[in-house]
C-alpha cells in the first residue's frame, strides 16, 4: 500500500477540563476527497487546528506525517509551507480590497519594493480560471456574493503550492446553486491531483463527492469508511455520528385543524437604501394559528429581509404595503413594537445578531422580556434564575450552569438559548430563520420536536430554511421566494424538492 499523503497517529489534545481529541487516527490517501463528519463538538475542527499548526507541536500528543515525513508545526506558516491550506467557514477576505489583492495578500508580487499590479492581475486571472470563477479581478470583494467569495478564498489557497486543501463547512453559507458549483469544483480539483479534506454537516453532499469518510464522535475516531466498497448511506453515517439510529429525522406531529389567520401581508415591498434597490416586491402571504409555514428559496432571495422588514424593520428599509396581525393593521416602528404584538424573530445568525455572546445564559434568556421579571422597575434576579432554569430544563440546554457565558456553548445549545429567549416573550407568531443551521443531528431533532409542540399549542411558526428536506419535513404549507418575490405557494401534500427548486431558480 502506498504511503498516505497525510497520516495523523494517536492524536490527543486536551483543554483544561476537556479531552477534545482522544487517540484520534486519521489517514488520507493522495488524490482523494476525504470527508470528516461528526456532531458539533466531536472534535473535527480541533483536529484540523492541530493539523494546521493553530494548536502547535507540543500542545498535543501523537504524530503528524505528511508523505511519510514527521511534521512539527509551530504555527500556521509552517503548515502552509508543508502544503496545507485551510478554508474556514468564516471567510478571511478583506471586503474593501479587490479580488486580486486578496488572492496575493501576504504574498504580494513586487518589483523589489513596489507591488506589480499588472503581473498580479494576470496571474490572478489564471488562478481564477482554475476555480472556474469569471469575475473582474479588480472588483472589490464586498461586491461579490458569498458563493463567489468562497471561490476567491479557494483561489487564494491554490495560488500557494497546495498538497492538501481543507474546507471547513464550505457550503454552510451557500445556496444550492453555489453549493453545487463548489462541490463540482472540488471534484475538478481532484482530477488535477489536489487532495481535499471536507468537513460538512450536509450528509447528502458528503455522499455525493467523498471517496472516504471518517466519522468522529466525542473526540474519538468511530470509523473510516470507503464510500463505494462499504456502501455508505445517510442512515449509516447518522448512526455512526450519534451512536444510535434515528428512525425519523423529522418527528411526527398531530395534524390539527388550522386556526384563524394571525398574520397577513398585502403588497409588501421594501426598498433598501444600503443596496440601492427594491429587495421585496409585492409580497402577499398569510399565516394561520397552529401551522408551520415554510419559506424556501435560495440565499439572497429576500427571505431574511422579509422577516426583518415585518419584524419592526431594524434595517430601515422604505416599506410599502400592509401588515395585519389578527386582522388589525399594524405599523411597527421598531422590533419592540413587533414584540408587543406577540411576534418573535429567532435570527439566522445567532452569533452576529441573535445572542450576547459575552453574557451568560440567564441574561440572554431574559433580555427581550425583562418587564416580566421586574417589579417596580427592579429586576428580581431570583425570578430570573427560575425562568432560566425552566427553559434550560424544557429545551434541554446543555450547560454546566445558567451562569455560563453563551460564547462557551456549542452551536446547538446556543440555538436553544435563542429559542428560550424568544419563547419567554410568549409569542403567538414565531419567525425561525434557518433554525438548524450548523447544528448537529441530535440537536436538530430536539429543535424540530420543540417546534411541533409549539404549534400543537396553537402558535404559528414561519420557518425560513435553505435545507429542502427540512422545509418538506416540517412545513404545513410552503412559500417559495426568489429575487424578492413570492414565486409560489403550495400545501405540503403537493410539494416536492423538484417543484420548490424550479420556483427558487425562477428569476
Amino acid at each position: 500500500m502506498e504511503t498516505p499523503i497525510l497520516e495523523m497517529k494517536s492524536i490527543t489534545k486536551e483543554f483544561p477540563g476537556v479531552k477534545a481529541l482522544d487517540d484520534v487516527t486519521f489517514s488520507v490517501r493522495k488524490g482523494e476527497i476525504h470527508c470528516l463528519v461528526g456532531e458539533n463538538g466531536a472534535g473535527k475542527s480541533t483536529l484540523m487546528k492541530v493539523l494546521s499548526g493553530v494548536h502547535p507541536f507540543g500542545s498535543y500528543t501523537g504524530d503528524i506525517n505528511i508523505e511519510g515525513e514527521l511534521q512539527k508545526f509551530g504555527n500556521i506558516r509552517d503548515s502552509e509551507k508543508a502544503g496545507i491550506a485551510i478554508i474556514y467557514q468564516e471567510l478571511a477576505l478583506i471586503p474593501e480590497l479587490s479580488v486580486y489583492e486578496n488572492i496575493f495578500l501576504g504574498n504580494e508580487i513586487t518589483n523589489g519594493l513596489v507591488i506589480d499590479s499588472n503581473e498580479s492581475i494576470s496571474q490572478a486571472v489564471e488562478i481564477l480560471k482554475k476555480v472556474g470563477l469569471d469575475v473582474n479581478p479588480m472588483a472589490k470583494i464586498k461586491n461579490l456574493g458569498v458563493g463567489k467569495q468562497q471561490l476567491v478564498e479557494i483561489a487564494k489557497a491554490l495560488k500557494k503550492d497546495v498538497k492538501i486543501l481543507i474546507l471547513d463547512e464550505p457550503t454552510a453559507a451557500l445556496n444550492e446553486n453555489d453549493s453545487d458549483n463548489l462541490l463540482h469544483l472540488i471534484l475538478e480539483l481532484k482530477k488535477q491531483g489536489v487532495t481535499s479534506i471536507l468537513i460538512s454537516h450536509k450528509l447528502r453532499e458528503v455522499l455525493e463527492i467523498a471517496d472516504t469518510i471518517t466519522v468522529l464522535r466525542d473526540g474519538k475516531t468511530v470509523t473510516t469508511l470507503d464510500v463505494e466498497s462499504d456502501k455508505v448511506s445517510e442512515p449509516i453515517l447518522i448512526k455512526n455520528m450519534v451512536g444510535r439510529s434515528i428512525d425519523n429525522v423529522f418527528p411526527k406531529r398531530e395534524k390539527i385543524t388550522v386556526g384563524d389567520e394571525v398574520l397577513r401581508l398585502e403588497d409588501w415591498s421594501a426598498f433598501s437604501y444600503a443596496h440601492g434597490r427594491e429587495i421585496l416586491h409585492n409580497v402577499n402571504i398569510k399565516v394561520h394559528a397552529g401551522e408551520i409555514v415554510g419559506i424556501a428559496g435560495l440565499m439572497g432571495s429576500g427571505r431574511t429581509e422579509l422577516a426583518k422588514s415585518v419584524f419592526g424593520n431594524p434595517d430601515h428599509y422604505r416599506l410599502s404595503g400592509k401588515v395585519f396581525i389578527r386582522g388589525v393593521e399594524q405599523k411597527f416602528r421598531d422590533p419592540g413594537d413587533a414584540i408587543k404584538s406577540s411576534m418573535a424573530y429567532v435570527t439566522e445568525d445567532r452569533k452576529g445578531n441573535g445572542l450576547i455572546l459575552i453574557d451568560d445564559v440567564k441574561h440572554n434568556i431574559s433580555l427581550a422580556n425583562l418587564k416580566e421579571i421586574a417589579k417596580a422597575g427592579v429586576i428580581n434576579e431570583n425570578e430570573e434564575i427560575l425562568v432560566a432554569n425552566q427553559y434550560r430544563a424544557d429545551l434541554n440546554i446543555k450547560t454546566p450552569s445558567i451562569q455560563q457565558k453563551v460564547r462557551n456553548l456549542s452551536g446547538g445549545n446556543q440555538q436553544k438559548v435563542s429559542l428560550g429567549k424568544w419563547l419567554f416573550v410568549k409569542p403567538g407568531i414565531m419567525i425561525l430563520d434557518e433554525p438548524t443551521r450548523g447544528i448537529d443531528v441530535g440537536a436538530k431533532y430536539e429543535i424540530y420536536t420543540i417546534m411541533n409542540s409549539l404549534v400543537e399549542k396553537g402558535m404559528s411558526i414561519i420557518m425560513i430554511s435553505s435545507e429542502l428536506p427540512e422545509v418538506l419535513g416540517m412545513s404545513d404549507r410552503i412559500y417559495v421566494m426568489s429575487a424578492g418575490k413570492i414565486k409560489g405557494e403550495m400545501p405540503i401534500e403537493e410539494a416536492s424538492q423538484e417543484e420548490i427548486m424550479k420556483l427558487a431558480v425562477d428569476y
Partner: protein
Amino acid sequence: MEESKQTTNEKEHLTSLLTVLKTNISAYFMFIALIVIMVFFTVTTDGVFISSRNISNLINQMGYIAVLAVGMTLIIVIRHIELSVGYLAGFLGAFSAIAMTFWGWPVYAVIPAVMILGVLAGMLTATPVAKLGVPAFVSTMAAGLIFRGALLLVTMGTGTIVIKNSVFNAIGNGFIPDLPIPGLLPERHKLTLILGLAAIVLSIFSAIKSRKTRQSYNFSVPNFGLFVAQMVLVSVLIGYVTWILSGYNGISWSLVILLVVVAVFQFITTKTPLGRHIYAVGGNPEAAELSGISVSKITYIVFGAMGMLSSLSGIMYASRLRSATTTAGLGFETDAIAAAFVGGVSAAGGVGTITGSIIGALVMMSLTSGMNLMGIDISIQYIVRGAVLVLAVIFDRITRRKM
C-alpha cells in the same frame, strides 16, 4: 437518591461560584492592587499617606474625576468614547460662577439648571452618533472644541471668576456637620462614626435578607462560615474607612455626592431593565435592537447621563477652587478614561462595572497622592501612571483570554 441530588446541587453551586470568581478576577485583582499600593505608600511615607487628613484630601481631589469615571464606564460599555467631558465640566463650572456672581441666581437654582444643561449638552453631542452613526470619537472631539471655545468666550472679559457663595464652595471643601456631644470622643467626628455604624448595620441586614430570599427560592447559598467571613470583611472595611475619616473633619460633601452617584448608577446598572439594556447594547447592538431595545435611545440616555455627571464634575471642581478658571476641566477626560480602563472596562463593549471604575479612580489618585508625598518629580509620576494604566489593561486582557 436525595443525597446524590444534594451533591449535584453543590457541584453546580461550586462551578457557578467559580464562574463568578473568574468573571470578576480582574475586579478583585484591582482591589488587591489598590490595597498593596496604599500599604506601599503608607510604609514609604511613614504613615502620612494613610493619615486621616491625607485620605480626606485624596477623596476630595478624586471626587470630580470619579463622577466622570462613572459615566465614562457606561459610555465605553456601549462601545463609544466621550472626549468632551472635561471641557463641558469646565464650561458648566464657569456657567455656574457667572450665574451666581453676575446674574445673582440663587445657588439652589444654579445647580439643577446646570445639571439640566449638562444633560442637554450630552444628548446634543450624542445626536450625530445615535442618529447617523458618526463615530463618537469625532462627534465628542468636536463638541470638546466647542465647549472649550465657549469656556474661553464666557471668561474672556473677566478671566478667573471668584465664587463667593459659601454654600456652593462647601460642595468641594466642606464637611457634614458634627453632632454636638460634649465629652464623647473629642478627637473624632461623631456623626461620621454613627453613619459608618449605620452603613455596617444596613449592609449586614440587606445581606441577610438577600440570603433569606434566595433560601426561600430553594437556591443554594454559600455556607454559613463563608457568609459570616464576608460580612466581617465588609464591616471591617467600612468601619476602618469611617474611623480614618472621623479623625479629620469627617465625611466631606464631595464624598456624599460621590457615594450618591455611585449608589444610583450601581443600582441602575445591576438591578434595572435599563441597566441590562445598556450592557446588551454594548455586548451586541444588533441583537439588542432585534430584542426590542432601541440602541439610539440607549445612546441618548447614556450620553445624557454623562453630560449630567460632567456638570456635577464641573460644579465640584469650581467649588473646590472657589473660582471658575479658563483652564478648568483640562485633561479630565483622560483621567476618567484611564480610571475606567484600570477598573476593568473593555473597549470591545459590554463589560465594565461602576465599582470597578471607582477602584480604578482610587488607584490612579492614590498613585498621584502617594508620589506627591514622597516628593517624586511630576515627570516620573506621569511615567508611573502610564505604566500602571497599560499594565492594568494588559492584565485584564490576559485574564479575559484565559476564560
